[in-house]
Each structure stands twice: as structure tokens, then as C-alpha cells.
């Protein structure tokens, strides 16, 4: 589809596909829609034979030293929702990465377009805490219903069960 990221391109913006900046990451096509382009981009993808939503996940970039793979004009935010789509006729794959600000971690749900994203979006809400507006069942899926917090956020520490060794003077 499109060549590598900007660089020798004289125009200010890099390559564009489906109306949003596109880069190539390890040979895979990655689109970077703005949050308000999110639904429209997925609608365009669906119209272009991308028949299945393979995966929806999210990354909390708050502890990342700095991303260098974003195209020009895309402002990095704390959260990033990543969705993968596949086109079975040509075997194309495309990945969407949308920046979601910490102050307003909400993106529109893809449920109406791809009902298969229901469980994946619930998982993202449960574990990373990015909400999906318009989701039919916006509840936790893996953690208990009364759990507080979102464990895959980087500010949630990894829990440990203290191991008691006999006569150990202090915990390690």
C-alpha cells in the first residue's frame, strides 16, 4: 500500500490512506486515525473488504521512554487503542492505532460494525480502562465485577504474595 514513514517527502504530512496517516511497521500497514476519525476509518475499511475485526487491544504508554514510530501530526497520548482487521479476499491486514488521552479515555465502540469486538472491548475496558461509548454490555469480563482499578495500567504494581521463610530476618 504505502511506503515507509515520512522523510524524503517534501509535503508536511506523510503518506495517507483512508484519509488518515499511514506508516509501515515491520512490514505491516498501520493507520493512525485521530479519535474523531476512528469510526469513519473503520467504516471505510469495512467498505474496502476488510471483513473481520481480528483483535482489539490497548497499550498504556505512560512508562514508555518515548515513541518514535508515530507519523507527523499525531500527538502521543497516554493510551493507545490498537485494532487489527483482515481482508480475506486479498489477504491484507491493517492495524489501527488511535491515541486516547488520559483525561478522557473514551472511544466509540465498534460493536455496531463488527459484533465480534464485544468481548475484546470489554477486555480492554476491564484491564486497561479505556471505555467504549455505545457498547451494549460495558462491564468487566476477566476481573471480578467489584474490582477497583485496571490492572494492565502501568501504575498498577505487580502483586506478590510474600513468601515466609523460616527464620528469615527480613523480607527480601
Amino acid at each position: 500500500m504505502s511506503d515507509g514513514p515520512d522523510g524524503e517527502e517534501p509535503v508536511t504530512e506523510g503518506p495517507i490512506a483512508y484519509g488518515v496517516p499511514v506508516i509501515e511497521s515491520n512490514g505491516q500497514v498501520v493507520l493512525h486515525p485521530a479519535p474523531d476519525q476512528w469510526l469513519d476509518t473503520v467504516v471505510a475499511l469495512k467498505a474496502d473488504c476488510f471483513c473481520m475485526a481480528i483483535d482489539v487491544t490497548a497499550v498504556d504508554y505512560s512508562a514508555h521512554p518515548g515513541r518514535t514510530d508515530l507519523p507527523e501530526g499525531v500527538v502521543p497520548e497516554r493510551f493507545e487503542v490498537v485494532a487489527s482487521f483482515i481482508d480475506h479476499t486479498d489477504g491484507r491486514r491493517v492495524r489501527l492505532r488511535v491515541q486516547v488521552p488520559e483525561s478522557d479515555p473514551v472511544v466509540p465502540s465498534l460493536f455496531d460494525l463488527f459484533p465480534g469486538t464485544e468481548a475484546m472491548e470489554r477486555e480492554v475496558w476491564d484491564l486497561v480502562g479505556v471505555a467504549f461509548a455505545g457498547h451494549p454490555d460495558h462491564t468487566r469480563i476477566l476481573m471480578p465485577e467489584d474490582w477497583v482499578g485496571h490492572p494492565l495500567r502501568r501504575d498498577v504494581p505487580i502483586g506478590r504474595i510474600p513468601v515466609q521463610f523460616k527464620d528469615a530476618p527480613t523480607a527480601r
Partner: protein
Amino acid sequence: MTDVTSPPADAPVEDRVENTDAGLGSAERVLRRDETSAVLRLSEAEAALLAGDPDDPPVGDVTDQRMILNMGPSHPSTHGVLRLMLEMEGETILRTKPVIGYLHTGMEKTAEDLTYLQGPTNVTRMDYAAPLFSELAFSMAVEQLLGMEVPSRATWIRMLMCELNRVASHLLFQATNGMDLGAVSMMIYGWREREEVLRFFEKVTGLRMNHNYIRPGGVAADLPDGWQDDVRRLLELIPPRLDEYDTLLTGQPIFRERLQGVGVMTPAEALALSATGPILRSTGYAWDLRRDQPYLAYDEVEFDVIVGTHGDSFDRYAIRLNEIRESLRIVEQILDLMPTGDYRTQDKKVTPPPRARIDESMEALIHHFKIFTEGFHVPVGETYAAVESPRGELGCYLVSDGGPKPYRMHIRGPSFVNLQTLPHLMEGGLIADGVAVVSSVDPIMGEVDR
């Protein structure tokens, strides 16, 4: 598209996404049934509210014979800890809610604390019936980020082991499927044949399950001497047994009655629900990553993609049975095509020195120590690698921040996604057929919950 009334932007996130009629105390909302949906969307709190006190007057219409039946998480036919909330009317299932999370151990969080070399020990515990596929997807993602080529022998060893793992996984399916349907002798036979494959795995990897055999850069060890004889023995042993299964099950009227026309799905439904693997193929939709997006060396071997016609439980059974035959066909070709050479990359950055070198070289000792304590650094980037596991597309989304541990590791578990088909397959069926449907979806809860 989604027509959402937007509350003020400063409202809490929960308020902004909550349905207007959601919330506790709305038993009416719960009882109101959306005829278009097979999915029961009912929280624990709402279910508890519905249960109420037996002495209380009934809620809603008293002539309404519907009830919520809980099945699992500890139930012999749920393959682990799957729990189903079934809305029943008599014996008929109206709506279903799969309740998962009982096996959630935070493996994606754990992965952020393990080096890339330790990563396979973690992911291998996800799909415990087909552990090599998770290891493969993870290793392929790491290799993509490293920009590394794997030696051809390692590629072919991976293929050999994965295809045998597919055989083992589908044999396990035959066993549990038989058990769920009352063909208990099938359970014994399925386990027996699977054990033969696992015995070979034990010889190669040292373990029957959770092998940690496929690692970034290649595989952990070369195939042992005489592996061809062991594989040939399997190739001679298993096909006649598969013919026995045909005699025992495939043509058997009672077995067919239990499966044919039960849990029917159309290709459009399967695509919409992101179902992959035998569920998608049972609808007659030929999609197999091994053929359509070849990884490893699948473009150099010959095999057929098995598809069904009706999309029912019987097709899913027959597809898995015949996929065993196709996998054995691939294994037979691998026997002849297995190249010689290294079984792991000679890139010193990711491969520890051979054991013998450590005794004679201080540098080798330091090198070994550094790889196993600090790990190797992987360039900044993100990637997605997918393989065709016995249950469908198994993907690994990996983000690296340049350090020795993944910044984020996400596994797209086919069981997790395929579980969404359950309510649609079970809708309108009998509860006894529900057992057959759960079995035919073949979810592995370790991968569902991760």
C-alpha cells in the same frame, strides 16, 4: 453508526458509557428480552437481584416460565472453568451469557516483568492443549522486532512440532467431545493416542506440556537421534486409530443425531463474530492462515484445508478429525524435507553459548550470565504475528521500548474470541444440545482467561 448522546466531557467515564436504563434495581430491564439477541447481558448483581427471596412475590409476569440457570464454573462438560448463565424456557435455551475470568492470572501483566527469553515460559501456559503455538506466535513477534531470520532447520522443526501438537490437541478434542456426548470409550481412546504424541514431545523437549521449546531465535534443542523412527511410528500408529474413530463415531446414528443440525452457524455470522479456525471453516468458508498467509515453510508442503457445509457441531467434529489426517500428511513431508544445519540462530545477541564453551571461556560464562540475568535488548517498535492454532488465529501483539522486557504483550486468543459464538450457537436449542455446542467450540480456558 453508534448514536451516543454525549454527556458533559467532565463526567466520570462510567457515566458516559452507561446505558440510560442500566443500573441496579431494574429487574424489568433484565426481564425485557431483545428478540434479536442471543446474548444474555446480565451482571452478577442483577442476577442476585432476580434470585431474590423465595418467599417474595415473583417479579414481572407470573405466567412467564423463563428462568436463569447457572451452569458451571465447575461442571464436567465445561472444559475447565467456563460458567454459563442460561435463560431457559422449559428445556429450551433462549439466551446465554458465558461468564469467564475464573482462570485469569494476569499473564499479559506477568509478561511485562519477564525477559524475552523467559517470555515463552509464560505464554506456553495459556493454551495448555496446544502450548507450542503460543510459543511460536510470541517468538515470531520477537524475531520480527529483532529483524532476525531463523535458520531453516529451526523453521522446519517448529513446523514438525506444531503439526504434531495440532494432532495432540485435536485428539484431545475427540476425547472430550466423546465424553461430553456420552461416548465414554472415545475418551479413553483419544487420551491414549494423544499420550503417544506427548511421549514424543517429552523426548524432544523434556516435557509433555508447557514445553518452552520454541524460543526467540529458534528452538531450545535439536531433535534427538532417531527422531525419524519415532515420528514414523506415530505416522503408522495414528491413522488406523482414526479409522477406528470413524467406525466408532462418524457413522454411528446416535452420535450423528446428537451433533447434526446442532449449533448451526452461517459464514456471515462467523465473520461478524470474528470466529476463526474450525468454527469458521465448518460454515464452508475456507480460511486457514497456513495456506492463505503462509508462515514458517507452509508454502513448501502440500495439504488441504478442510471445510464443512452446514456449520453444525458435526462439521466441527469432522473437520478436526480430518485435520489430524492433514497434519500427519504434513509431518510425513517434513520427514523427507527436514534440512540440516543450526536449530537456533548463531546471533550471539540472543543465543547463549554452548554449555561446553562455558567451562573453558570466561567470556562465554559472562555472555551466558548476561543473557540469562539481564536478557537481550529488542529495538523499539510494535508488531503483530499470527499463527493458525488448532482453535483459530492466535496472534501476539508486542510492543518494545528498547529494553530487555516487552513493554506490552497481548495475545489474541482464538478461544477467547470464539467463545462469543456460544450464545448464537445455543439459541433455541435444548440444554442437552448446549453441552454438545460447548464441546464443539472447544474452548481452552487457560487461553480464554489468560
